[in-house]
C-alpha cells in the first residue's frame, strides 16, 4: 500500500505537508487528529459519523473526491461557515486517489 501526500492548512493559517497511509481505513479528519493539527476536542467530536461538522474543511485542489452522501449533505446544510467547496473531513477516505489533496480547516463553531 502506498502513502499519499496531502496539504492541510490549519485554523491558524499554517499549511502542513503531511503523509497519510492508505491502508489504515483513515479519513481526512483522522489524519488531522493524528498529526494534531487541531486541538483534541475541537475536531471529530462525533467520532466521524457526519453528525457534528467539527471537521468541516474547504477543498482547494481539484482532486476528484468521493461523491457526497445524504448525511454529509444534510449536516453541511445545518453547519456554519459553509462554502461551495465545503466537505466533512470524516467523509473523505484516504485512498491513492487523494494524492495531492489540499484542504483548509473551517473555523471552529
Amino acid at each position, binding site marked *: 500500500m502506498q502513502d499519499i501526500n496531502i496539504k492541510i492548512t490549519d485554523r491558524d493559517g499554517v499549511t502542513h505537508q503531511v503523509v497519510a497511509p492508505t491502508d489504515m481505513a483513515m479519513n481526512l479528519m483522522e489524519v488531522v487528529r493524528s498529526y494534531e493539527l487541531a486541538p483534541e*476536542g475541537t475536531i471529530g*467530536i462525533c467520532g466521524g*459519523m457526519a453528525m457534528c461538522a467539527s471537521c468541516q474543511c474547504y477543498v482547494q485542489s481539484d482532486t476528484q473526491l468521493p461523491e457526497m452522501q*445524504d*448525511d454529509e449533505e444534510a449536516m453541511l*446544510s445545518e453547519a*456554519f461557515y459553509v462554502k461551495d467547496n465545503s466537505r466533512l473531513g470524516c467523509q473523505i477516505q484516504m485512498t491513492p486517489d487523494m494524492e495531492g489533496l489540499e484542504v483548509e480547516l473551517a473555523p471552529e*463553531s
Partner: protein
Amino acid sequence: MIKTDILIIGAGPTGLFAVFEAGLLKLKCHLIDALPQIGGQCSELYPKKPIYDIPAYPEILAGDLTDKLMEQCKQFEPGFTLGERAETIEKQEDGTFIVTTNKGTKHQAPVVAIASGLGSFEPRKPLIHNIKDFEDKGVEYMIKEPELYRNKRVVIAGGGDSALDWSIFLSDVAKSVTLIHRRNEFRGHLDSVEKVQDLKNKGKIKLITPAEIVGLLGDDKLSGVVVKQAEHIEKEFEIECDHFIPLFGLSPKLGPIANWGLEIEKNAIKVNNALDYQTNIPGIFAIGDGNTYPGKLKLILCGFHEATLMCQAAYQIINPGKRYVLKYTTVSGVDGFDGTRKEAPKAVVKKID
C-alpha cells in the same frame, strides 16, 4: 442540599457504570447532567447507531447500551439532577465539596467524579450579527417551557429532528409556526417529516425553504426576522414574529469545569493514571472521555475500567482505614440499596446411585 457519597458529573456510560461499581462498595451516587436525559453522547448524538467494541456485545445500539447500564445499576438507586449544568465547586472545611448547578441546585459529597465526556452539550448558535441582543428577549436556543409560546408567532430554524418535532408540537400551541431550513430536504424520522408535510398541507405550519435567517428586528424585544430565500432568484424579506428558535443541534463544551482549578491538557482533565484517575485536586477524579493521561484512548470500555478504579479510591477517602477486599459478584451476589438481592443459584448436591 442533595447529599451523596460520590457526586458524578455526567450521566453517560462511564458515569452510569460508576454507580454500579460504587454500589458494590456500599457507596451511593448522584449524577448531574446538562442534558435532560441520561446516556450522554450515546443518547444525544447516536442512540440508533451500533457500537461493536463493548466486550461481550458483538453489536449493541448506543441507546440500548444506556438502557442496559441503567438496568444494571438501578438497585443502587442513583439520584439525578438532569437538564442542569454543574457550574461551581467549593471545597468545605470538612473536606467535602459543594457543587452548584446553573439553576442553583446544590450537591454535597466527599468525592466528585467528573465523567463529563467532551463536555456539557450547549446549543450551537447561528452566526447572526445581532443575535446576542435578543437572547431571552424572543430568541431561545432550547424550548424549556412550551407554554411560553401559547398564542405567539414563532419562527423555528433548522432541519433535524428537534426542529421538526418542535414545529409539530408548537403548531397546536402557538398562533403561527414558520419553519425555515436551508434546504428542501429534512433529516429526521420519516414519520416526523410526513407529519410536518401534513401540517403544511393543512396550513398549520408555514414552510420556507431553501432559506435562512440573516437578521433580527426589534427594539428591546424581538419583533421579526429577516429571511433570505435562495430559490430561483435570491430575495430578502421580513417576517413578523414574537419568538425565534434556532435549533442547530448541540455541541459539547468543557464549560465552567475549566475554571475549577483542574489541570487541563488538550481540552481534557489531567489525571494520575498510575493509581486512581485522581486530578490535581485530591477528592476530585476524572473518568471517561473527559480525562487525559499518556496513552489515553477515548473508548467506553476504558471509561468502565477507570470508573472501577476510581470507586476503590473513593472508598478509601470515604472510609479511611476501613478494610475491604475485592469480591467477585458471582461469589458475593449484588445487594441493592432497594432491598433486592441478586445471587448465583446454589449448586445442587445430590447423590448418584
